[in-house]
């Protein structure tokens, strides 16, 4: 009855088949475009593109809604705080004491929120459709030592497990009458000690056992490590890299050569 916290969704699609290195490259370029531009149309376009990519890779719409729900508090905060605290030039739409609301401030808020959402979904294109094993392998091919790649993979793998441990222990302590101290920040932090201590002990025990399990399955066996599914760049991957790079150059020229997109509108 536990919930799954896994990111990667195994499917059979063009995005899943794409070489992780090629995908990483295109995603990095797309993220850079997201950071270069403040124009609402460009950011909205990027967001739309990420959605189309995910949907075409058979990622269920439910998962996209799930991600939106997780992002909602952050986006809402940006939408509210950005216009109020950085109102920008232009006539006031509304003035409440020191707080001013302007059209430019509002647009700025929309632009920032769109950028956050676009970056999250662009990252999701990589994370939801890439087998972490292949991602690690791709990185190793690019020169990353295998133990580093393995460590990164394991860190991602065990985040949800540690979170689950935290939740289970917090339930156990609540059943013993534990409640969060409603006092100041320090009181609050202190009241988490019964859960944090037990979680840390549990996580350390888990990592000890994981170390044993990795060794028992031959980590560091005296042979050249092979891989079941080799990653290799197919013509389609090169095409994706080429098209992505061309589009990126186009966007750089548009932004810096023609000066488009430096403002939200």
């Amino acid at each position, binding site marked *: *009855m536990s*919930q*799954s916290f*896994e990111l*990667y969704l*195994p499917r059979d699609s063009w995005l899943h088949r794409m070489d992780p290195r090629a995908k990483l490259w295109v995603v990095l370029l797309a993220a850079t475009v997201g950071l270069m531009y403040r124009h609402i149309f460009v950011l909205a376009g990027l967001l739309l593109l990420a959605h189309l990519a995910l949907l075409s890779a058979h990622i269920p719409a*439910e998962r996209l809604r799930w991600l939106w729900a997780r992002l909602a508090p952050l986006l809402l905060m940006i939408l509210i705080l950005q216009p109020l605290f950085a109102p920008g030039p232009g006539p006031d739409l509304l003035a409440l004491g020191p707080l001013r609301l302007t059209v430019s401030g509002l647009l700025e808020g929309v632009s920032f929120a769109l950028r956050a959402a676009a970056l999250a979904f662009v990252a999701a294109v990589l994370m939801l459709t890439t*087998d*972490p*094993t292949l991602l690690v392998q791709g990185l190793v091919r690019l020169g990353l030592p295998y133990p580093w790649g393995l460590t990164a993979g*394991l860190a991602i*793998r*065990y985040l*949800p*497990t540690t979170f689950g*441990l935290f939740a*289970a*222990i917090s*339930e*156990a*302590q*609540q*059943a*013993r*009458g*534990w*409640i969060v101290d409603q006092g100041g920040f320090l009181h609050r932090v202190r009241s988490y*000690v*019964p*859960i944090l*201590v*037990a979680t840390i*002990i*549990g996580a350390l025990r*888990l990592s000890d*056992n*994981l*170390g*044993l*399990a*990795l*060794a*028992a*399955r*031959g*980590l*560091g*066996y*005296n*042979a*050249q*490590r*092979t*891989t*079941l*599914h*080799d990653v290799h760049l197919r013509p389609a991957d090169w095409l994706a890299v080429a098209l992505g790079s061309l589009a990126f150059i186009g966007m750089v020229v548009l932004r810096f050569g023609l000066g488009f997109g430096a403002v939200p509108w």
Partner: protein
Amino acid sequence: METQTSVLAEGLRFAYPPPAPGEVAAWVIDGLDLRLQPGGWLAIMGASDAGKTTLCLLLAGLAPHLTDGTMEGHVVVTGRDTRQHPPPALADTVGLLFQEAEAQLFSPTVEAEVAWGLENLGLPPAEMQQRIDDMLALLRLEHLRHRTPTELSGGEKKRLALASVLAMQPTVLILDEPMGGLDPVGRQEVLDALSRLRHEGSVTILMTESDPEAVAAFADRLVILDQGRIALEASPRDLFRQVERLAALGVSVPQLAQLAAVLNRRLGSAFDFISVDEAQANLQRPLTAKDAAGAEAPSSPPAPAALAGSSVKVSDLWFWYEQESTPALRGVNLNVPTGQFVALVGANGSGKTTLVKHLNGLLRPRRGGVSVGGQDTSQCSVGELARSVGFLFQHPEQQIFSATVQKEVAFGPRNLGLSPEEVDARVESALARFDLSAVAERPPAILSYGLRRRITLASLAAMDPPVLVLDEPTVGLDAPGLRETFQWLAELHARGRTILLVTHDMALAAEYAERIVVVHEGQILGDGLPAGLFEQHELLARASLALPPVIALGQALRPFGLLGDCLTVDAFCQEYAALVGEGS
């Protein structure tokens, strides 16, 4: 020269590093000799602090290389001394299945999990693919090939871990508690997997296991470990006759072996059986077949008498974890009178745990209502409900966090807002009840497993809640721990406390509960007195529950005049003795 021996341990002693400077390191393995011939299947049983897991780590060559500590004597696995061969160098000859699934499944897909070890061995992709296909077929995992290991059921996880180890084609396979923590469905899956392994017969197996039925089914030799030494060694059948000796060593025997021992003591007979079939053949001999009328089940017993005042009342409870997901509970109605001992039984995922988590507000009803001691739980915080409902979770030792035993036990009562004098008095009496006064000022983290388990019981006792919920308390509990826990529960029950036991151990439910509630797919499928419920074979099968052997045996002997309504070994013995005539 030792080519005939798969595993050899001589004069083996091992101690972990002392918990704190100045403390004395205790020998966990203390002078052990073991020799295992190729193709054998050796089982190791013992109490939880007997050193079973440590022995597994030593024989797999992981200790002392990765655990630190002091080792004396030596271990040789297929001719390789583990001192000279660090763990990676042994990976192609010895495989170890760990107790905990969580720590050994770390890959994103089932296929990648099995592949990982093979990649380390440097096998060419084509051979890897072949071995993966073979293993997934052997362990019936083909349909899960692209699934994420964390999403699998308990039995599937165990089988995947086994596949990952077996794919590396070890000559020696070490299984640490392969049945541990599995529900009846998972247990059956793993039993099937092990019997296919037995059938293949190409690998030498050493297995620690607490489940005596599994040991009896597979092992050809059984070693009883006690305080790091071999206390007994013989065939499982021979050892399981020594019921009392094994009980003293913290080892339980198959229920029917226990029955044979009890009958033999009482009747002076020489019964010798482990399985229901054997027992039936043995026991029906002194009896004569009655006419067909005798073979019918007794008329169903009356429903439990309504006791005054209900302690727990659940009405039309619906719950789902996420919108649009299948509801985990679908219209559950349950009324538990004050002072009743109820067992909630059902396979994993049936909704038992989801149901009881509503009793102390860890979950809130999506629809319907729950009240405890007359209080509507929706009006109370979890903290307030902790006064009324105590919880014992699986692996309760994981919640221990305090610097001293005394502080740990005081944590609950203090949270309840009791006066310092009251807290002290409760803690003192709880420590005394569980024999912990001597270690009151010691840090729990360095105490033995048995003591830490008692600390969790004392912590709960000090809170003294009127309603007590136990969620699968048998998981990870050895025979002495089980005895201790249920002795205490019997005391509480006698004092009028209400007890809800969540379990899939039907023998336990039959022995202790006054009433059994069968939970299946989020609904209550059956509810009644244990004797009546065990007659409903179809219902039990639907809920993936099996009859405890002694009950199945009683029912099988109905044509010979037994009523077949005995729930425990003692009750069966009573009735059987009366039937054959005491002492005849």
